């Protein structure tokens, strides 16, 4: 077995597998490249990485990353990831999920994944639409947008993914955009370093079905939340006209208050140290006096 840890540094090329098949201009390409960049920067080894996804355009990411991966079923990536985390805690887990996958069919698992705070980076690809099934209303679709399932406009206000995550008790909540390259990679970096369930909301372009969702050509509408110690730096290269607001991600009240400005604010919204379910469970086993298999039936002997 080659000791790949020592000999071969991970390169961008190493991380390529089959060719992506998204639409031209799709933000998923940028996410893919950003993820690879982040892995190279941090020299995360491919064999120790698992990309897990549900179903959607976003769900295709694992196929294109030359790591281990599971492209699972719609809305259910989290339970699988938790199984991996409990089985092999040394693996690095990235969960990829669309706005529909996360917040429509997968909402319950997201609630419990967040609450369990097990170690993984969760990427919510928010294009405010069902991409793969061709443009139906998603839970984050802007009210009023006509879609094939709501021809006279999406009925209700979208779910706010940030308030939802905070309400569920998240330990790490950040929001970024795939077209802001540096901010995106830095966000992944912060998320990866945070122990627990790192919830990363990503504004993602879907030129095919929802081009109006994100105005990526302008940046005057967005505000970076920055904090010198803990935050993620503003990305003035990608978003030259963005406002910058100094903000501490350590206060729950702040976070809830600022969540109202989502999706116009970007940065680290909240971060706190919270107990991790995977660690608690595995420690409980570790700390338990181990029994001999030979004694298994002893308590039942009569």
């Amino acid at each position, binding site marked *: 077995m080659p000791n790949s840890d020592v000999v071969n540094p991970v390169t961008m090329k190493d991380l390529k597998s089959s060719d992506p098949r998204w639409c031209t201009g799709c933000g998923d390409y940028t996410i893919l490249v950003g993820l690879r960049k982040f892995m190279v920067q941090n020299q995360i080894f491919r064999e*120790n990485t*698992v990309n897990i996804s549900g179903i959607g355009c976003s769900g295709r990411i*694992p196929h294109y990353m030359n790591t281990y991966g599971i*492209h*699972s079923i719609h809305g259910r990536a989290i339970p699988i990831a938790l*199984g991996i985390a409990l089985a092999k805690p040394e693996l690095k887990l990235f969960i990829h999920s669309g706005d529909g996958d996360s917040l429509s069919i997968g909402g319950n698992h997201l609630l419990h994944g967040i609450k369990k705070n097990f170690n993984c980076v969760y990427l919510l690809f928010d294009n405010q639409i069902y991409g793969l099934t061709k443009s139906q209303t998603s839970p984050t679709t802007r009210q009023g947008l006509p879609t094939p399932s709501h021809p006279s406009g999406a009925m209700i206000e979208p779910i706010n993914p940030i308030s939802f995550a905070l309400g569920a008790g998240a330990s790490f909540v950040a929001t970024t955009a795939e077209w802001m390259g540096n901010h995106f990679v830095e966000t992944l970096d912060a998320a990866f370093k945070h122990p627990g369930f790192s919830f990363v909301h990503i504004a993602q372009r879907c030129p095919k079905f929802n081009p109006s969702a994100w105005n990526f050509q302008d940046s005057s509408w967005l505000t970076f939340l920055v904090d010198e110690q803990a935050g993620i730096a503003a990305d003035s290269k990608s978003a030259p006209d963005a406002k910058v607001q100094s903000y501490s991600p350590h206060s729950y009240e702040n976070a809830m208050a600022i969540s109202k400005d989502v999706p116009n604010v970007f940065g680290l919204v909240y971060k706190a140290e919270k107990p991790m379910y995977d660690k608690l469970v595995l420690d409980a086993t570790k700390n338990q006096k181990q029994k001999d*298999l030979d004694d*298994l039936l002893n308590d039942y002997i*009569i």
Partner: protein
Amino acid sequence: MQKKSNFRFELLMDAGNGAQKAGDILIKAFAKKGVYVFIEPIIPAEISPPKRTPFSLSGAVIRLSDSDITNIGSFSDLVLVEHEILLERRLQDQEFTEGCTILLDLGSKKRAQDAYEAVEKKAADAGYNVVSFMISEEAEALIKSLNGNGKNMYYLGILACLFNVDKDFLISFIKQTFKKLPKDKLDSNIQIFEFGFNAQVMDEADSLLFEGITHKNEKVLLDGNTALALGVIDAGIRLYAGYPITPASSIMHSLARLLPAYGGVLHQAEDEISAIGTVIGSYFAGVPAITATSGPGLSLKQEFIGLSVASEIPCIVVDVQRGGPSTGLPTRTEQTDLFAAAYGSHGDGPKVVISVANVDDCFYVPHVARYIAEVCRLPVIILSDYMISVSYRVVDKLKQSKLDDVRKIDDFVLDHFYMNRLSDSIEMVKENQNSPGIPDQMRRVTGLNTGSSGAIEYSADSNHRAHEVRSKKIHAVRHALKMPERFGSDSGDLLLVGWGSSRGAIEEAVQSLVNDGVDVGGLHFKMVYPLPLNLTDIFQSYKHVVTVEMAYGDSLKATPFSMMLRSETLCDVQGLICEAKGRPIKPIYLIEKAQAFLKEVQHA
């Protein structure tokens, strides 16, 4: 004193009054003495139904024998019952033998004179021998001091005396059971027991004697769910993910206590969908994992079961069947999840379904399920049922396997499931089947169709190939299956075929029919999907083949297993027993039905 070698009795009390605890203590004493026991608890559907109502019926049915017993039997020879309402309720089930002795506590007669008289009359009319008694005043006073608790100890005393169990011997079991109780309370319990023991409810002449044998082997007392939980550990499975549901929950409860001590992990998931997802995740990462549920949970898991098939990530699902459809009868037994297990997931998703019939099967089924799931890389579904899950039985201390590498599974375990070793060259849809952590073997799996490289493919041929490869895995299992051992005649007039928990009843009924000179055989399957090859040959050795299932059927509707067998063999397999009444099949009922069937076809 009457010597007995086979006896069934029951203790019936209001829920919450400790009938099962008393039963447990008593059978432990019996078992220790070398008597074989089989115990089926009666559990009400509500947590604490109001006392003195029919819904409150709770208790233990206990069968004793000086040789091994496989089922709860047909009728009770003796009943000890707390009050008239429970008796009235239980009389409806018609499970008392002719001349059965009914010990009826008159404690509530003051407030229900008429009802008592009515039920006493009913019982007498049915030919039962009602013996009434009153708890002694001293005992009543002690019970009062325990806030109404302890009546079960009085009854235990009566029963212990009746069965000529040594008093001190039994008290040692009381002490063991209540070891966490404060000393004064424990003492009161023992005192109540002694009052009962000395109450002389029955004449000494009517008392019973069971002469236990001295067992050569160490014996264990286990119920199905506990055996299954222990088997999970012995089979090397190290992650359990589940969501509570009756009657599967107690598997999780046992494993919650045990798994961490054996290096494993217990995960309570937010729902059944999540639980199986976590099992699949664990298996993908290389750690064998299992989930257990009951009908409604099985329905919820169907989509993930399909992913396990398509992605070739193994997974093991236990389904403890209960009365259905929908929420149905959570504390009653039925065998109606067979199709949902074999065919429930959308699309064509070949998988293996194994059933269990008793405590031994429960202990070894995780081993064989793991073996098949990992060698074939597909989902294996284990079908148990309420009846098996809660029934206790004394068996030889089970030989452990301490399974690690599944390829080294013990022959005796495979034999137990009538199976040979699987071929070493079973083809997979995907060539690379490595787990994360292994360098240079990175791979992606998906629920979409793929070719052998693992990459998504939409072509006609690759889809057909994937179907073929998956189906051939099942054929490989099929080729490895031996014909299960047969009971009774190897050929003749009638073959009784069953699966799962009907085994004991079939075995006993066939034995009895053969003893009566009837030319009948019995065939019982553990593996239910796929079935062994060459079934037709065997079926053709009998004039008639019928199934025994706890599932509804009629002339226009074949029961599930008979439908499988009909399609497989093209023999006119009928359901002999196709009833879904929530209770296990009585051997005597089976015998009667078989006799009636033979009479009918001979006259036709």
